[in-house]
């Protein structure tokens, strides 16, 4: 399950972004930016810059965070959860 979350963007921009890139995953719209803010404060590097990548484990707690896209590390975290 992969959710891409955009904060404080407008619907039309997000739709064209999605169509431009042929993105098939679910894109959630955090219109007020509140959800992003809650998560940002949880991170070890509470920067406002993007990206913020989190993996939530099977029990609803965090198992991974990064402020740079690191596919290998993210996949390792997910696989570890699935193998538990």
């Amino acid at each position, binding site marked *: *399950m*992969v*959710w*891409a*979350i*955009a*904060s404080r*963007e407008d619907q039309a*921009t*997000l739709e*064209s*972004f*999605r*169509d*431009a*890139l*042929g*993105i*098939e*995953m*679910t*894109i*959630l*719209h*955090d219109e007020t930016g509140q*959800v*992003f803010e*809650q*998560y940002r404060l*949880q*991170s*070890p590097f509470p920067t406002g810059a*993007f*990206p*913020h*990548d*989190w*993996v*939530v*484990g*099977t*029990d*609803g*707690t*965090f*198992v991974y*965070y*990064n402020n*740079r*896209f*690191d*596919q*290998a*590390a993210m*996949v*390792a*975290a*997910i696989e570890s*959860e*699935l193998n538990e």
Partner: protein
Amino acid sequence: MISFLIALACQGRGGPPDPADDSPGDSTPTDDTAGDSAVTWQSLPGSCSEPAELPADPLTLVGAKQLTQEHPGEFFVELVDVELGPGELIYGAGQGGLVVYDFTDVEEPLSLGSWPSPQSNPRFHRVEALSEAVVVAVHRDQGLEFVDVSDPNELRLIQAAPGQGMEGMAAVGERLYVSSRDGGQLRIWDVSSPTQPVELGPISGMPENTWELIDAGDGWLYAADQAEGLVPISLADPDAPSRGTALDLGVGVQYAAVYGDWIYAALGGGGVAVIDRSDPSAPVEVHRISSAGSVVQVSVGEGLLWAADHDGVGVWSLEDPSSPSPLARETSEQFALAVAAEGDSAWLGDWSYLERWDLDRSISSPEARLDRSQLAFETSGGSQLVQITNYGGDTLVLSGATAEGLDIEVSTAAIEPGESAKLRLTWAGGERLESTLCLATNDPDEPLQKVELLAGDTLSYLGAPAPDFTLTDLDGDTHKLSEQLGHPVVLAYFATW
């Protein structure tokens, strides 16, 4: 900012990408190191400083034109396809429309005329030149448009043809072929008179998820298809093309380029497949090469293979076409999605920039890429692996490494072009770790390569409950995080800028 999101999307499309390495037998770096008993680990000098002399870069950015919202006509182009025009003109297609660029003055290129794409879904996906005066641009769900570019400052619509899911295009002699996902049709136009295109009957039974059609120039077309792979299509009867058996490459093919008896197929995270088409009806894969990013377009020039791979642009020598050897690569400014080769140069569609890159074949240098930016350790300590790959044309030399509190070993200190090395980092354990691996190399762009090393309370978020939320997606459906309990969820916060 958007690169990771695309990488995730592309991972969904093309299957799990391998770590950047030619040997599929290697295990994921975060596994324990028991499987590496075959490696002779060696240490490096314990310092991390730039070598006194670095090689020159063979691949340089000589000119770039950025379109922004201030562009006259007020649209913002995110380039998805690039096509060479006559003289110094280049056509760019993307979100917002079609733009003609003039690179006569390479350092101060201009944008000339533009043709906007339909308002409701503003994006052209492909552009193809039919003649010096006419180009055709296809729009995924609004059909295609034939545009008069005889006056590059003032583009005019010749004809629009509606259609669904049209994407790949190839102009071959007096015919234009366009792939359509709507029922796997191949639509055909008679373009013997480019300003008066006439649609002929479509052919069905064609691949249904084709990203691009590539003309081999000898009566064969190849469809780069997401589901089937590479599909040969015979043009023995130009008005009744017939398809052959697909070459299944295990992942979707996004694009391809023909070089005589060879085809190079862009496989996203899968890299580039090297395909022998000496029997054009039965192409066979002989080799696969990897690139630093996700390869979405390829183009061949004079003995050179170029690739646009999100991260930037790579170039290989085709001296031995069965085994392209890396020459150079560079990270581009934004997000590379399109490439068109011309001589020793290539035009790169880099999101809002159109760039020209020149290759100096007399220079050779290494190009380092690590497979990760961050490494997390258990507080009990242990060993972790990091992989470094050389995408350049000369040996990558590791001259030193430091990481406070850790032991560092490498599988080799001299990495040949296209090869990888592993680094094994061992930590004795402790309450916390906040250190950086610094690796000294002779990479001319970034000689000091870094990886963040973490453990303990720097990872204090681990085990903390993820705040619950309910958000709506772009189609109006709601999604609640706590309803996903039981399986892992990736939350990728991103921005479109």
